[in-house]
């Protein structure tokens, strides 16, 4: 069973790298959706002794609905209605950002073993996956010019936070976690509105153009 859990974590990280390397926004959205599916499997796989079945089920179904279906669907709709389909000139090229992302993940794997965490018996790849995913999401937010790319970055970052949250899911009441998922949904709604406004004002989703705004 550990082999399969390892595989889930590694696939999450490989999807991070894929989003970093892909210029097509559609492919990036699909990758984030796939990551959502993997994240919804994680709570099920990690809960070895089923004491909190209801809690785990809510978490898994919630992640599946919000992260794997709802948000990707909203984003796909946003890209369909706008004319952008690919990130052309990110601030940092695809190759350097891929290498940086991989270096960050490697660093996360190296030093995660030394982090003093109060939770015993956690999966050895959980913390590296979380930190690496947050790092990749941050890179995406900082380096992408198109609003959709930045939203993808935010989603990847949020996925990393979700993985870390799994560590504490035994201590946190389910309401808090449902709250996290709803926060995310609200944030994506806001971003969708902002994207719509950028699109209407400049007929493009290039956030660079926001710099020309004046009073």
């Amino acid at each position: 069973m550990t082999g399969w859990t390892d595989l889930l974590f590694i696939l999450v990280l490989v999807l991070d790298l894929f989003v970093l390397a892909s210029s097509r926004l559609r492919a990036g959205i699909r990758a984030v959706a796939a990551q959502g599916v993997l994240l919804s499997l994680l709570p099920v796989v990690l809960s070895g002794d089923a004491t909190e079945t209801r809690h785990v089920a809510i978490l898994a179904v919630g992640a599946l609905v919000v992260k794997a279906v709802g948000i990707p669907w909203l984003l796909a709709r946003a890209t369909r209605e706008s004319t952008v389909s690919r990130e052309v000139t990110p601030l940092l090229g695809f190759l350097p950002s891929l290498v940086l992302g991989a270096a960050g993940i490697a660093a996360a794997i190296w030093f995660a073993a030394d982090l003093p965490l109060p939770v015993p018996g956690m999966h050895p790849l959980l913390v590296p996956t979380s930190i690496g995913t947050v790092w990749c999401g941050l890179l995406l937010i900082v380096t992408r010019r198109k609003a959709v790319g930045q939203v993808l970055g935010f989603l990847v970052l949020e996925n990393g936070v979700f993985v870390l949250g799994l560590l504490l899911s035994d201590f946190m009441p389910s309401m808090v976690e449902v709250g996290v998922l709803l926060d995310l949904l609200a944030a994506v709604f806001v971003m969708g509105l902002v994207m719509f406004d950028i699109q209407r004002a400049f007929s493009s989703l290039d956030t660079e153009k926001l710099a020309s705004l004046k009073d």
Partner: protein
Amino acid sequence: MTGPLLTALQLLGFLSLPPLLLGVIGRIKARVAGREGPPLLQPYRDLARLVRKGTVYSRTTTWVFRAGPVVGLAAVLAAGLLVPLGAPAATVAFAGDFALLAALLGLARFATVVAALDTGSSFEGMGAAREVTFSALAEPALFLGFVSLVRSTGGTDLTHLLGDGLAAAWHTDGPALLLVALSIFVVALAENARLPVDDPATHLELTMIHEVMVLDHGGPDLALIQYGAALKLWLFGAVVVNLALGARLDEPAAAFAAFLGGQLAFAVAIGLVESTMARLRLVRIPQLLVGASVLSAFALVLLLR
């Protein structure tokens, strides 16, 4: 079956079957496109036709040009001795022979590149530059993959890396080995001039990589080059198939059959990749190859953890 007999069998397969792999790929591509496709044995007929032809040498070429195909084929044949090709062991095995495998494949490439430069054609120089650039990017992926295997199986000869040690390694480090297999498959596509890196069917010199280097070769020389390319595909197929099969069956005949089936699946996979993907733009190819290196490096980091 005994050891020497199996070795002879794997060498016989290595010498006779590789063009069939090309035939299978061609057939799969044609079928996906809705055509009937050439017969499976067409690559053999092409080779026979080329061997019967005469050769024409340009006056600007020297012995380097004539040595290219011979050295290239000889290097690939020698590399074939190092990889287990269906039998439990490679024909020759010693510690660290995976480095010699990479070196021999590099020598074959060097011979082709030097022969291409010897013609003085600007097109061929361009192709040579691309070939060398992309293989320089593919090599880290291959080496990091092999180093991951060394770390995981605990041996340094290919017989152990791709045979005896794999069953235990898949059991303990399955996910990492999966990444290595994926990375080496991408390297195999790049090294054998297949899509999405190079289009073997293109006739436009500006976009060709491997094919443009052999434009000036004709007749038996071209036959040697094409045969060598088929052997190289068989070699990379063997690495990927051995890696993917993992545990070897106890019965030698069954293991050999499984290996041949794996090669067939490898050819089908390449045919499907070529049917579903377009060739990447030249500037995007380094990204793919660095991506493969990153996967290998990631596997290594996981194994060092």
